[in-house]
Every structure is written in C-alpha cells, then in structure tokens.
C-alpha cells in the first residue's frame, strides 16, 4: 500500500487557494470584481497541475485512483470552476455580498467533485459527495436577502440530506453483503455465489441509485432542481448544472463499471426506465417554462436522461457506452456553460430572466444572441455543433447495446427539446424588441463566451481528440472491471 501524498497536489493547491480567497475577501484591497479572476487562475492552475499525472496509473493507497479517468475529470472540473468564476466576476460584485467566501466555497467544492471521480471505495466517495453537496447548498442560498434563493437552497439541503441517508443505507446493505467498501472487492463478491443475499445487494444498489439519481436530478428525484436553479444566483445555477452533473456521473459511471458490472443484467432495465422517464419528463415540462433558468433546469434534466440511458447501455464487453457518456458529458458541460454565460451577461445588463424578455435581443446585442443560439443549438444536438457529435456517439452506443427502443425515445426527446430551444431563439430573432437601444459590451464575459463557442465548434467539427481522451479514460475504468465481469454467472 502506497501513501504518496504528493498525488493530491492539485487539491492542496485548491485548498490553499480557497484560503487565499477568503483572506483576500476579508483583508484584501482587491476590487471584488478581480477576485473572480484570481479564483479562476487557481482553478486553472489546479487543472494544469493535474496534467503531471497524464498517462500515469497510480493510486493513493487503495482509496483514490490517480489515472487517466481522474485526470480527465480534474481538468474538466478545473475548467468548469474557472469558467464559473469568470461568469461570476461581474454578477457577484453587483448582486452578492461576502465575495471572498463565495469564491472560497466554490473552489473547495472542486475538491469534493474531484474525489468523487477518483474514489476507489464507497466511504471516500460518500465523503467527497457530501463535500461537494454542502458547498452547493451554501452557494445556492448565497443571496441571503432573496427569499427565492433561501427557499431553493433550503429545499436542496433538506432533500439532499434525505437522499444522502438513502445512499448511506444502500452503502450499508452492500457492505453487509460483500464485507467490503472497495469497488473491486464488491465486484469480486458480487461475481461469486451470493446465495440468499442477492436480494439484499440489489436493494442496496437501488438505494445507491436513488441517492445518486438525486444528485444528478434524475426523475422522480429531480424536484429540487427547478426550484434551486431558479432561486440560486445565476452563476451558481450554472455551476450546479455543470459540476453536480459531471461529478455525479463521474462517480455513477465508475461505480457501475467497477463495482456493479456483475449485476449488469439486473440494473440495466432499471436505469433504462429511469432514463426514459427522465428524458421525457425533463423535455416535455421544459416546453411550458417561462423563466429561462427553469427552462435550462428542465433541459438539463433531459440531458441527464440521455446520460442515464448511456449508463443503462454499459456492457461488460465494450467500453463504448462509457466513453460515449464521458464525451456527451463534456459536450453538455461546454454548451450549458456557454448558455449560462450569455444568460448571465443579459441579466447583468437588465436584471431580466423571463424568456419573453429576450425579445429582439438579436438587434440589441447581436453577439450574445448569436452565442446563445449556438449553445442552444448545440444542446439540441444540431449538426456542426458539439451536441450533435456527442449525442450521435451516445445514441449509437445505446442502439448497439440492444436498446434500440431507448435510442428511439432519446431521439424523440431531442426533437421535443429543439422546440423549446427554438422558442428562445424565436424571441431573440423574430420578435420586435421593446427598444432598439443597443446594450453595452461586456468584454471579459464576451471573451469567455467566445472561447466556449469556439470549443463548441471545435468539438462539433473535430471531435476526435476529445473522443480519444474519453476513450482512454473509460478504458482505464474498465481494466480490472472486465476481469470480474468474466467471473459473473
């Protein structure tokens, strides 16, 4: 057993940076606006540091793996946090108080997310999950004077506690059956003869699925999401929509592959049906939304449905579905962050977040309107844009796993999603604006939006590098897991 503490350097950096942010907020003379940039630099530095272990395959004891999978998510989370810090810069200065702590909590939450992806055993994963969740509870209710923010944050926390309890219960059941919390040990035990305890193991697995389903807002555990999204400060909404999904799926995917693959035949139909209701409900209810934050909340529930379908399509034979899930996760995160950046810019100008208030935006701020359209097209999965390629690969993987009907549902849900994305674009391009006065230019945010839009096109037109990264990350998770799957009855 190796306890090489240097493997955790990116997280030391984040922790130190969080302390620095808090101190800067207390005693620093830096304008609140610049704090966002300092925090973003820290997140980027952590992502860059993680590249030291690129291609490595090592572990911190038997608790945390530091391999391609972890690196993939360290980089993803670092970029998410950096983007959200930049989105926050203008917003936080104007609408929130206690700027230093805001960024400190944001940076700390990345540590939790990272360990969710890195964890090799259930208790570490659970602690990491709670670290992320608690940060998000605080952030969601950060607008102290805003009732909606309080309400959303409170609901999120109470229900989060409830679902954590279910998750822990499931964890306990699994431990009772397998006598271990390590993924590999669980897989070995499950692949063996379980006798009469198999039902207990399945119950434990179901409860874990419920707990994780809550974190990624799968239906019917999604109800907190629209309220929390609507109430939370805008950049926090962006953060929750990106990191809680990405980290949730990082854990979910690894757990299902490394620990529960032997029971694949039992949980695959369960996840397929969860995916179906999630895709359908998320996309259908989105059609009725009037608030852009709620619209994006439901749209991301729909996206979660596609990803769940990808998990249902996991198979012991090939890592295709796993890499497709990672790919679509990355595509979704990029597109969603771009959309939220645009929405935040507009909110900073006008304080408006209802969809009809976007009317005529194309005339008043053509760049924002265009960028928002591009990100929505990408979320809808139109060709040229990132979303097309990632969805195409994901749906193909689902279809190849003999879940053709599930792929068909996903395609249908995508059609529905195009409808409500186009509704927003219709307001921006076809409806006359209230006034023709041009809105200003927000250079730093524009820069971020431009980078994200370029990323959407890069992934859309040349997805191979990202695809390779996803494939390598996924194949590493599979190594080891495959051997146990072979033992499976």
């Amino acid at each position: 057993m190796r306890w090489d503490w240097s493997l955790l350097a990116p997280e030391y950096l984040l922790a130190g940076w969080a302390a620095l942010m808090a101190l800067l907020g207390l005693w620093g003379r830096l304008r609140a606006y610049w704090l966002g940039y300092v925090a973003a630099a820290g997140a980027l530095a952590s992502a860059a540091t993680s590249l030291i272990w690129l291609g490595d395959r090592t572990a911190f004891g038997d608790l945390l793996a530091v391999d391609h999978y972890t690196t993939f998510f360290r980089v993803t989370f670092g970029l998410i946090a950096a983007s959200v810090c930049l989105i926050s810069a203008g917003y936080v200065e104007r609408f929130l108080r206690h700027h230093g702590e805001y960024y400190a909590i944001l940076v700390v939450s990345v540590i939790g997310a990272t360990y969710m992806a890195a964890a090799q055993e259930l208790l570490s994963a659970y602690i990491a999950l709670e670290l992320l969740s608690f940060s998000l509870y605080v952030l969601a209710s950060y607008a102290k004077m805003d009732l909606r923010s309080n309400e959303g944050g409170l609901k999120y926390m109470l229900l989060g506690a409830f679902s954590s309890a279910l998750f822990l219960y499931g964890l306990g059941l699994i431990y009772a059956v397998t006598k271990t919390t390590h993924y590999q040990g669980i897989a070995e035990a499950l692949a063996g003869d379980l006798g009469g305890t198999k039902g207990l193991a399945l119950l434990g697995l179901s409860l874990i699925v419920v707990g994780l389903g809550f974190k990624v807002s799968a239906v019917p555990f999604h109800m907190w999401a629209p309220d929390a999204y609507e109430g939370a400060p805008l950049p926090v909404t962006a953060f929750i929509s990106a990191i809680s999904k990405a980290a949730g799926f990082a854990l979910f995917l690894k757990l299902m592959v490394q620990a529960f693959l032997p029971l694949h035949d039992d949980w695959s139909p369960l996840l397929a049906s969860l995916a179906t209701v999630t895709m359908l409900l998320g996309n259908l209810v989105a059609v009725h939304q009037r608030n852009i934050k709620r619209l994006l909340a439901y749209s991301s529930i729909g996206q979660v449905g596609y990803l769940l379908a990808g998990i249902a399509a996991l198979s012991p034979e090939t890592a295709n579905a796993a890499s497709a899930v990672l790919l679509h996760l990355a595509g979704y995160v990029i597109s969603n962050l771009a959309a939220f950046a645009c929405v935040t810019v507009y909110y900073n100008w006008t304080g408006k977040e209802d969809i009809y208030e976007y009317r005529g935006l194309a005339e008043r701020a053509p760049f924002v309107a265009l960028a928002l359209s591009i990100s929505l097209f990408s979320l809808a999965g139109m060709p040229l844009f990132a979303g097309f390629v990632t969805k195409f690969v994901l749906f193909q993987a689902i279809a190849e796993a003999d879940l053709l009907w599930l792929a068909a549902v996903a395609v249908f849900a995508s059609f529905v999603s195009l409808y409500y994305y186009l509704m927003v674009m219709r307001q921006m391009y076809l409806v006359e604006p209230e006034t023709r006065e041009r809105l200003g230019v927000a250079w730093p945010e524009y820069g971020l939006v431009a980078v994200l839009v370029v990323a959407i096109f890069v992934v859309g037109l040349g997805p191979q590098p990202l695809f390779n990264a996803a494939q390598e990350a996924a194949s590493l998770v599979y190594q080891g897991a495959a051997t146990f799957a072979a033992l499976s009855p």
Partner: protein
Amino acid sequence: MVGMEHAWVLPALPFGAFVLLMLAGRYLPRRGDLLAVGAMAASAVLFSFVLADLTDALAHGEFQGVFSGTDWLKFDTFHVRLGFYFDRLAAVMLAVVTYVGTLIFVYSMGYMKGDPRYGWFFAAMSLFAASMMTLVLADNLLLLYGAWEAVGFCSYLLIGFWHERRPAAEAAKKAFITTRIGDVGFLIGIVLLWREAGTFNLQEIFRFAQEGGYSTPYLTLAVLLLFAGAVGKSAQFPLHVWLPDAMEGPTPVSALIHAATMVVAGVYMVARTMPLFQEADPVALDVVTSLGLTTVVLSATIALVVRDVKRVIAYSTINSLGLMMVALGAGSVTAAMFYLFVHGFFKALLFLAAGNVLHATDRQTVDDLGGLARKMPLTAVAFGVGALAMAGLFPFAGFWAKDEILVAAREYHNQVAVAVLWVSVALAALYMGRLYTLVFTGQPRDRHVWEHAHEGPPIMVGPVLLLTLGAVVTGFLAFDQVGEALGLGGGIGQFVYLEEPHTFHMPWGEAIGSTLLVVASLGAAWAIWGGKGELAVQLGKRLQPLYLLLWNKYYMDDLYQWIVNRIVLAGGAVVAWFDRVVVNDTGVDGSAGLTALGGWLMRQLQTGKLPNYALAIATGAAVIGAVVLVSRM
C-alpha cells in the same frame, strides 16, 4: 520549407479572414478589406510554393498524391477520415481560384467602394474562397459535399447581396433552389457509393470500383446521380436557368463565383470522379455529352438576342461549361481542365471589364450604351481581348483550349458532337462580336450616359489589365516548351491527364478551319450589328418566330413556372389539404396537444412543497426497490 503537406493552409487563410471580419470587422480600418485581400493574396503566394513542391516531386518521380488529414470520427466500425488531397488536377483548379480570385478581390476594393455592407461583402467573399479551396482539395466525398453546399450557400448570399432589390432576392432564391435539385441527386449518389465501398475516400472508392466492387448498373446509376449535382452547379441543361438570373449579384461576384470558380466546380467534380465514369456503362458518358451539347446549342443561340450585357456573358459562360462537359463526355480530362483554366481568366476579364462599364455608366443593357471605346479605351481593349479569347481567335487563350476540345471530340468519333461544336464556334464569335460592337462602337444610344462615362480608378483597371495579359498568354501552356520553362515539366497535356500524357501537336485542320470560321463570324457580327444596326432589325423582323423563341429563352422559364404553378402547386394544394386535415389537425396538433397536455399534467406534480418532493423520492425509491426485488424472486 513550404510543401504540399501545407496545402490545408490555403483555405485556412481566407477562412481566418472571414472569422476576423465577422467578429471584429466593425473595428478594423476600412472594414477589414485589406485583411481579406491580404489573406487571398497570401493564399496565391503560398499556392505558388506548394505548386513548386509538386512539380519538384513530379520531376523526381516520387509523387503519390499528398494527403494531410485527420480522423474525424472513429468509433467501432464507423470511421470517417477527412483530409486534403493535392494533385495536379487540384493544382490547375487552385491556380484559377487563387490567382484570378486575388485579382477579383483587389478589383472589388474599387467596385464596392462606398457600399453600406462593404465589410460583409469581403467577409462573404472570403468564406466563399475558403469553401471553394476546400472543395478542390477534399480527398473524400463527405468533405467535398460539405464544401459544395457551402459554396452554394455563399453564392446565395452574394447573389442576394442587394437583397432590398426584389429581383436580386428572387434570383438568389432561384439559384439556391435550382442547384439544390441537382444536389439531392449528388447526395444520393454519394450515399450509394459509400454504401458498397464503406468509405467516402475518393482514392479508395476508385480502387474499389476498379476491382469491380460495384455492379455496372449500380455504378452507372451512382455516377449519373453525381452528375446531377454537376448539372445543377455547372448550369447544364435543364438546370441552367438560374445562372443568367444570378447576374443580379455584384459584378465581382459574377466574375469570381459565376464564371471563374464555383460554376466550374461541377466540371471539376466530374473530372475528379472520371475513373468512376469510365468503370460505369458508356451510357453515363453519353449522357454527359448529350446534356453538354444541348446546353451549348441553347446558350449560344439565346446569347444572340439578350440585351443585358452581363447576361450575354452569363450565356457565354453556360456555353463554355457545355463545351467542358462535352470534353469530359469524350473522356478528355486534359481538354476540359485546359479550357477550365483559360476560361477562368478570360471570363473573369469579360465580367470585370463589363463591371467597369457598369461602374462608369450605371447602365446594364445595350440599349443605353454604345460608342464607349472612345471614352474608355483601356476597358475597350481589355473587353475586346476577352471577347476574342471567348470567340477563340488565334492566338488568344480560348483558341488553344477550344481546339483541344474539337480534337477530343473528333478522336472520340462522335460526329454529332463535332458538328455541334463547329456551330458553337461560329455562334460564339457571332454573339461576342455583337456584344462588343453594340457596347463599344457606333453611336451612343444614350448621349447623356455616354458623356458621363469615364475610365475607372487604377485599382479597377489594374486587375483588368493583368487579366487581359492572362487571356492572351495562358493558352500557350498547351506547348511543352512553355510548360517546361515554368517548371511544370511539360505542357498541359503532360500535366493533367487521365491515362497517359500527350504532347501538343498543332491540329492544323481545326486550327485553320476554326480561325476562318471565327473571322467570318466576327465579320458577320460587324455587318449585322455595326453602325446603326439596320440589318439586325430587318433580320429580327424577317425571322420573328425564331427571334421570339430565342428572346423567350426557348420558353423554359415559362415552362418551369407552368410546372411549378400547375403541377407543383396543384399537387401542393392536395398535399396541403392532406397536411392540414390529416397531418396537422390530427397528427401534429394532436400530438403537440398531447405533448403539451402531458407536460402540463407532469408540471402539476411540481407543487413547490417540500414534503411532496420528499414523498416523490421515497415513492421512487420504494417502487424501484420493489420492482428490482420482485423481478429477482
């Protein structure tokens, strides 16, 4: 060292200019036109280096066709590799795109000056140039098709550049829809080829076909569908009707897109896929020849009566495109590409010189022009050279290229083709002579316009003069000595060929015969339309039915309109009824209503009350647990 592997930079440069102009055009000096022109010129310079590298490799006999590409998508069995393929065929086409393109870009700085959408013009032109180069360099049908649609889209944007004017908007729409008819066939053809071969890569498809992978009828169908794309893009009968209307666009657009480059993309594509045509049933090439010949006859006769200067040139372009198709039908890639190459120069010259006239007079029909040689001597000389090149008089560029096609048709033993081509030679000289006579000689028909006419600024005259030079000298590339002097290792016949190179021999029969014919036709043109043009009026009266037939363009536009009105729209009415009652009311509205209702019902679950949410989670957990357990028991 810059080599062929850098060919991908060629389209990247104008594309970069396009992006910059779109993003920051407003903040750039002069709306960024210098950036666009600079990128295009840089492409031209870079192309020269790449070409030098190609000829170098050829001289050492090590050329294999240079790829630079990446895996675009690769998972499991689905594998698409996108890349660029630089060979001699691409080099000829790129020479036209980069060299002629640069001159037209420079010219545009003068011609478009003061236009409210000046910056947008250069952005769209840059995007076009980038797409065009991508089309030429594509090593696979998927990328080729993407670029094919992109140039069509740019053409749409630029024909409708002055979209406030209704004819321009209408023409843009017509061009887009008409070419789209061909494109559907093109896409189906691509899919057919892919389905059997499992790849989009052109070289691999050729190999697959040569190994007999396709059955002959299947391949014949596929290449005919490919050809349908070329018919639309290269304005061949019966889809030629969009090109004359496309003249509503600004003149540099006509010169670049609708003369030198985009419209010859169809010819290029057929030349590129010629190995497939040869593997297919001979009937495929017969179709190419027949449609080419029909196009030649239609366009050359209509051009005799059209009164709009730019439209006459447009019909002459259709005429030229028909000639190139006939050359391809005779299996001579050399003749087609040679004509394509010189055509790019002299046709761009004709358009730009006509643009000078338009710019100076603001008039576009011959009824308002006349006698302009005295006011605009340089333009008159330039236009004259372009007209003679088009007519094919010795020693201008068109002469050599046209003779190559005559020889190719003769060697192919196609008597009908030979006869029609000779008629075409006579007609081309006749209508080009007519146009020159009406615009530049005789008495001005509108005194006021004539008095205000003047030569254009240097930035417009300069490119015209350079193109004039090109219209004279490019034809000499037929000679091996000229080609060797340029480092090409031989004349055009040694450079671009399908099976084996051939050396140019003066075809004395065609040369002397066509020269006499052209001179006679030019004389006839002068006699008919020179001076006051009384003979023309008399002829018009004497041959009124013929005149009306030509004037109405063989009634093809009317026929199409009739088809659209009576068949498409009538059929549309039936479909619309079906759509309204069955599809919409029951299907769409029904399902939309159902969707909305479903969404509304599900939304009722979202009460906003915390206990309800917790109940949902608990219920969900209970149901899942129960289902999983029960299914196991």
